[in-house]
């Protein structure tokens, strides 16, 4: 086992340089002539000083300690850690996309604008919606845009009494956060025994003070809500709107559309569903899509086509405004566009179907070894719990996740959704081979057996990683993220 990599500050030596700037071709001037004294540092910034080879080795070694989709299986539930095809990177590296200046006039950016325009229309078609804004920078940002659109819609009708947003207890934590940030009071709706929205509780909670319902479908249990048509009627009949959280859209591409289910506004995560990197490799992109009656409130700018020319349009008097500087995360859009174009409609449908098949395959292989709280066919992900294992051996979800690291697998999502005790949320995605799925199922089965035969081995895992079990509570209680130079 290798020792953990030192901080770059710890390998710093005075005077070392990794890069030399060219000779100045203008006369040098003292910084004191150029800046007021209050803006000038009294002491040097204390930046690390390293040679180029030490710099390269440091970051290469760090990258080797990392886990990513290109290293191994990554079944992190509700995150859709699918393989991101390298051709998408080629597209984003085209100089016309990569080097374009954000202030370039529309007439010199026709290719980039055409790509954005076409992506808007592809996403609208996939969602069953009418209009799209590509502005939001990621999923929760898209949620906030959607919530602000719902607020603007009610206010424009002078309907000021709608102060609440309904959210199921299985929702991602970002949903209540976005609603609260949008100025709403959050009302939680319980789930029923099949894992869907408790329709009677929804009916009781729904009245003229409710602005809308935020729903993820399939939800975080990986279950498609069988009552979606009833839910739609209950919310719309009292004047509320339906928001679709697209976090789990990888289950539905080409098979069902939120617009057809009756949703009024949604966001997609291009970085989950449409094959662009995320986590450490982001950034994300969270386009928001609406039905036509909400179009006046979309964030600006959007790309429009007039007389054969593409143009950024800011002409929307009732807009909620800008969500992001410039035009959103453009290069992520290029990657998502490349993904959609290379798969095509049939390929996208097949991707979702394979994602659902893979999830159900793993679920059925491990069902005898773990508790399955909602024993139905799942969509692209599912939730299990080591309930019986925990009761009989004391091995918890955290231990199982840590033990999976010894198998070279990234742990599933832990302890979420909150409505399942000791939840393990598993999303294999469509891009894995049967061998990988079997390897993972075998690992989970082996750990379930090991919990009885040698529980300590599980409770003290991981054993093969560079560092073992970290003191997460200690780190959270005494947060210290600043390196200080030893005296």
């Amino acid at each position, binding site marked *: 086992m290798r020792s953990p990599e030192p901080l770059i500050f710890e390998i710093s030596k005075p005077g070392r340089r990794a890069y030399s700037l060219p000779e100045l071709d203008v006369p040098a001037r003292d910084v004191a002539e150029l800046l007021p004294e209050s803006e000038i540092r009294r002491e040097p910034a204390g930046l690390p000083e390293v040679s180029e080879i030490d710099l390269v080795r440091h970051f290469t070694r760090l990258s080797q300690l990392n886990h990513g989709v290109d290293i191994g299986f990554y079944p992190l539930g509700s995150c859709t850690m699918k393989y991101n095809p390298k051709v998408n990177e080629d597209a984003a590296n085209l100089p016309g996309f990569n080097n374009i200046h954000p202030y370039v006039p529309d007439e010199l950016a026709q290719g980039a604008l055409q790509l954005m325009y076409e992506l808007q229309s592809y996403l609208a078609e996939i969602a069953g919606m009418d209009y799209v804004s590509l502005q939001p920078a990621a999923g929760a940002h898209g949620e906030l845009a959607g919530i602000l659109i719902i607020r603007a819609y009610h206010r424009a009708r002078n309907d000021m009494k709608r102060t609440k947003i309904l959210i199921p207890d299985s929702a991602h934590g970002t949903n209540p956060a976005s609603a609260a940030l949008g100025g709403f009071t959050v009302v939680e709706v319980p789930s029923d025994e099949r894992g869907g929205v408790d329709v009677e509780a929804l009916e009781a909670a729904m009245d003229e003070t409710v602005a809308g319902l935020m729903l993820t479908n399939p939800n975080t249990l990986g279950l498609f809500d069988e009552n979606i048509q009833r839910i739609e009627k209950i919310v719309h009949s009292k004047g509320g709107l339906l928001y679709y959280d697209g976090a789990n859209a990888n289950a539905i591409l080409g098979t069902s559309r939120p617009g057809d289910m009756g949703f009024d506004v949604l966001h997609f995560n291009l970085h989950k569903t449409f094959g662009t990197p995320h986590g450490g490799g982001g950034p994300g992109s969270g386009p928001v899509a609406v039905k036509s009656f909400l179009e006046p409130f979309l964030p600006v700018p959007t790309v429009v086509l007039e007389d054969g020319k593409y143009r950024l349009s800011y002409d929307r008097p009732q807009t909620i405004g800008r969500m992001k500087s410039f035009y959103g995360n453009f290069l992520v859009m290029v990657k998502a566009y490349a993904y959609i174009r290379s798969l095509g409609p049939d390929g996208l449908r097949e991707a979702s179907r394979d994602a659902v098949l893979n999830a159900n395959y793993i679920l059925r292989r491990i069902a005898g070894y773990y508790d399955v709280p909602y024993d139905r066919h799942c969509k692209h992900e599912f939730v299990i719990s080591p309930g019986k294992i925990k009761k009989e051996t004391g091995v918890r979800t*955290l231990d199982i996740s840590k033990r999976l690291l010894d198998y070279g697998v990234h742990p599933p999502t*832990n302890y979420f959704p909150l409505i399942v005790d000791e939840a393990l949320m598993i999303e294999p995605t469509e891009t894995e081979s049967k061998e990988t799925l079997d390897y993972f199922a075998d690992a989970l089965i082996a750990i379930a057996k090991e919990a009885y035969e040698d529980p300590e081995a599980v409770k003290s895992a991981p054993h093969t990683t560079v560092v073992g079990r970290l003191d997460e*509570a200690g780190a*959270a*209680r005494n947060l210290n993220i600043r390196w200080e130079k030893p005296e």
Partner: protein
Amino acid sequence: MSYPENLKYTKEHEWVLVENGNARVGITSYAQDQLGDVVFVELPEVGTELKAGAMFATVESVKAVSDVYAPVSGTIVEVNEALNDSPELVNEDPYNDGWMIVIELSDPSELDNLMDSKAYQKMVEEGGE
């Protein structure tokens, strides 16, 4: 798991100690065990008025963030400032040093709605909430 007999309990796993007409409130040993290591406790201010069932504190553990609810109505007359620097007291000593607030009761009859230790223990052992 311990269930002190001098305390009263709620379904949401808070405990109440009645002393001099006031109610000292914290979360139970079972609750702290379910939460895992507590890393932050957000407490209300002295003087806050509470209705029974109202959320008054937030407990953040390495696993999750959970709300804590007032078992009875009244005015907060004391909060446990020690939890600001030492949230681990909730894990280490939930029934003593890990207490959260003291409420001056506005309606002592609400105490009759709470469980005794036997009833609470039975609820937890039968699967709880």
